[in-house]
């Protein structure tokens, strides 16, 4: 039985290794993370409310009660993603989050002069094949503003759009803004 202390010592050493391994694998294997939860709740490109107003209760916990939040997930292997919304929220923000939970791109309502949200999510390869054309000088009619391009290094992820509703009287406006949110692969 002299070998028992040795076995226990070896076990404690192993426990340290297991501790580190479990800790580092948890974010990769978790079935409770935001991406897994949202993937279970929504089809790709389907805009879904994820705050407490969602039909089955909040999809994502810990969201600010003053905000209304919608999200859609995308797969860029089907082409660039076009996201747009129009409305009068007193503050809105949009964030592109990869399947691993990393923030890839975010902006808010002050990024552009106009109030509407409009941007394109694409991979560097898709961006390379795209010529950004400046509008010709002296062109007639309304000048089309160039889009915001969010270049991301992943294929799968989600777009989260938050609209601020400071009190109940703003909820209708924030709701209209989120209802107008559209996520779709760019037409060929």
């Amino acid at each position, binding site marked *: 039985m002299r070998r028992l202390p040795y076995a226990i010592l070896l*076990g404690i050493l*192993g426990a340290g290794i297991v501790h580190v391994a479990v800790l580092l694998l948890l974010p990769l294997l978790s079935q*409770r993370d935001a991406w*897994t939860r949202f993937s279970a709740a929504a089809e790709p490109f389907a805009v879904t409310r994820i705050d407490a107003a969602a039909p089955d209760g909040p999809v*994502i916990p810990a969201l600010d009660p*003053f905000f209304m939040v919608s999200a859609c997930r995308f797969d860029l292997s089907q082409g660039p993603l076009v996201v747009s919304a129009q409305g009068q929220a007193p503050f809105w923000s949009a964030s*592109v989050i990869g399947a691993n939970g990393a923030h890839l791109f975010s902006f*808010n309502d002050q990024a552009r002069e106009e109030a509407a949200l409009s941007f394109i999510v694409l991979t560097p390869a898709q961006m390379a094949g795209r010529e950004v054309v400046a509008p010709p000088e002296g062109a007639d009619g309304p000048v089309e503003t160039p889009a915001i391009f969010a270049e991301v290094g992943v294929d799968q992820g989600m777009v989260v759009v938050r609209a601020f509703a400071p009190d109940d009287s703003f909820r209708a406006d924030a709701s209209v803004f989120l209802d107008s949110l559209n996520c779709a692969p760019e037409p060929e």
Partner: protein
Amino acid sequence: MLKSVLLAVVTLAIAIGGGAASVWWMLERGLPARGWVPHANPAAANANPYVRAQLSRSGALTLGRAEGLSFIAKTDSTGEPFSANCDYLLEGPLPTARFWTLWAADPALNPLPARGPRPSALHSQQTLRSADGGMRVAASPRPQPGNWLLVGAPGPFTLVLTLYDTPAAGFQGAAPPALPDIVRTGCGA
């Protein structure tokens, strides 16, 4: 032969059981913290692995840089956990931001239910502003003069302070911005 097998079983049991249990204990008990803790991007290269693991288990989403920055407090500034029966005063400077929100949550970070028409939440556009641009809010189950954050649930609670559209969101593991102190001012019956 049997003894060797037995010893191997003991070693493996300690390694796997102890390793898994220690991770669970660390994450359930929470990391030692005092006052405000940033609730920031988990995938940042320098993120604490315990914070990352905890976030992936909670399912919460952090805010992007252009969105804002959240802080979570489970204790007052001395490290004492919040008690629903006590009054707290949040007072001090705030980083520049377009606006902030402050809400009370249960330990799983779900917002506390409203008491009648009054939610357990405040934002900077409905509060009295301090002349120095800082924040002064009393968090209590009983009505308070000035800015009052209702915290009505029994048991422990959590405070979440979020700054929206703030340059402070760019901080990457460097010194976090100065935030209001959380001082316990008394405990009522």
